[in-house]
């Protein structure tokens, strides 16, 4: 079957995996679990508290001895998430397999940028490959991390065989030559823009149905968030306004009217004005830009994203829950890392600034 199947046929191919993912979702850390974590005084207590939860289990980090580091905790938690992803991927059939591969392309883009940036700074190749996100590995990764290559060289030798090949078209038109940090950000944003647009096209046109509807909403928010962040980060840099327009994905509530205004903006005030006028849904988040508020814009966006992902579980017989679960799991790992860092550095007053996963928007 090339589509996920409707109400009466979805379960035949994907019913078991939907049950599995919903089970993983039920075992995400709850409010009371987070309370227990925030009350720990040392990282060993944190590890014991995590071992008491059903999501992590008594085997979590069982062979790690003190002194523990926050990176160790993050690595083990990420390893758990990856084993869950691999279990689902191995048991899936098309088109769910293709959908799950689409999820990995985002990580691939981050890995490619990491390798090229590392090569520019003459880092050890093996070390860089270890730092890559395991969900985004592809063959011949080490060949990227060779210095003094232009984008075209990297494309022709390595990336042309990967699924990222069609997304490189936007980067190849730039003049060749060696790359620097700012250009790598432009490359990353161009790749991600092409990836979001392709993912949206795949979900709405090829998969359709409930999957298309829910994924479209999730990807729209992702695109809007990127547009606002690119605009805010591009002030006081060399990025020209014409180039800025090319980095905004062609989807989302802000496209096309508001992105035109954002492309011409010169300071955060104009961004706030444009968004509040044309995209009422995000206006309450803009307050953190204009006034002194407790939450940063990034945190508000994380909360909105978590609420959207939690809502996607209300629909059965769609693939969006797979995408949403892994985004929520990533957020949970970020939360655990935040709490661990606060415990380690004794910043107990900041410890409650993680993003709770039961927020309602």
């Amino acid at each position, binding site marked *: 079957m090339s589509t996920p199947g409707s109400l009466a046929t979805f379960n035949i191919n994907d019913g078991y995996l*939907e049950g599995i993912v919903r089970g993983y979702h*039920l075992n995400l850390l709850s409010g009371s679990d987070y309370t227990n974590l925030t009350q720990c005084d040392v990282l060993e207590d944190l590890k014991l508290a995590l071992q008491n939860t059903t999501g992590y289990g008594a085997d979590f980090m069982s062979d790690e001895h003190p002194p523990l580091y926050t990176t160790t905790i993050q690595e083990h938690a990420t390893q758990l998430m990856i084993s869950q992803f691999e279990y689902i991927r191995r048991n899936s059939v098309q088109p769910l397999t293709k959908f799950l591969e689409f999820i990995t392309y985002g990580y691939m883009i981050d890995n490619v940028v990491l390798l090229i940036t590392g090569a520019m700074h003459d880092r050890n190749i093996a070390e860089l490959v270890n730092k890559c996100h395991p969900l985004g590995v592809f063959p011949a990764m080490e060949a990227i991390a060779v210095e003094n290559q232009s984008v075209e060289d990297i494309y022709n030798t390595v990336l042309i065989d990967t699924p990222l090949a069609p997304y490189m078209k936007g980067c190849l038109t730039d003049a060749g030559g060696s790359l620097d940090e700012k250009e790598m950000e432009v490359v990353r944003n161009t790749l991600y823009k092409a990836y979001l647009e392709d993912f949206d096209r795949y979900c709405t046109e090829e998969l359709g149905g409930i999957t298309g509807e829910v994924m479209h909403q999730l990807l729209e928010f992702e695109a809007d968030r990127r547009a606002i962040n690119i605009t805010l980060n591009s002030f006081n840099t060399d990025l020209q306004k014409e180039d800025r327009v090319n980095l905004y994905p062609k989807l989302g509530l802000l496209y096309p009217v508001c992105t035109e205004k954002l492309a011409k903006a010169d300071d955060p005030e104009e961004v706030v004005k444009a968004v509040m006028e044309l995209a009422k849904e995000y206006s309450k988040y803009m307050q953190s830009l204009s006034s002194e508020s407790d939450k940063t814009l990034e945190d508000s966006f994380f909360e909105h994203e978590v609420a959207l992902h939690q809502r996607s579980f209300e629909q059965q017989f769609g693939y969006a829950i797979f995408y949403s679960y892994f985004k929520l799991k990533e957020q949970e790992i970020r939360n655990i890392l935040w709490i661990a860092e606060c415990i380690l550095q004794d910043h107990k007053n900041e410890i409650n600034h993680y993003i709770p996963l039961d927020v309602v928007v």
Partner: protein
Amino acid sequence: MDVTNSTFKYTDLEIFFIEISPYTFANLGAALAISLSVMAAAWGIALTGTTILGQAVSSPRIRTKNIISVIFCEALAIYGIITAIIVQLKIKDTQVFYGSDYFAGFAIFWSGLLVGFSNLACGIAVGVAGSSAAIADAANPELFIKVLVIEIFASALGLFGLIVGIVQANAADFGLNKFPLM
């Protein structure tokens, strides 16, 4: 039944239907009753069974209670067997076909079709409802009994089909020898 030598003027379409033996329709009806009902049960069990299996990995407590969704689907196959066996007992050999034999053939055919398709609809409904019930049960154990009421209503559809089908097939009687063809 050969009517080429009769005195009554039949149209071609009438001849077509008269020349087809009523046993064709009767046996086809019995076959449809059982096969469509079994297809319904299989479809329903596939829909609900996969979700129960998937959710049971993380919440093993739902296993026993959710078997009832599978039992509801299984009941549809039983309805099909009941219909098929009841109508098969009515199919007797006769030598000359009377009007009542043609009636019997058609009655059994349509009753089989009726039971088959109503069970098919019921099977899909119970399957989808059972799948959602398993997910709700895994999330919150108190929900299960309430969600079960929805499934009970869905499974009543198959019962309606069975009742009407049996009533319809009851009038069929091969060998009654009434209403000779002219």
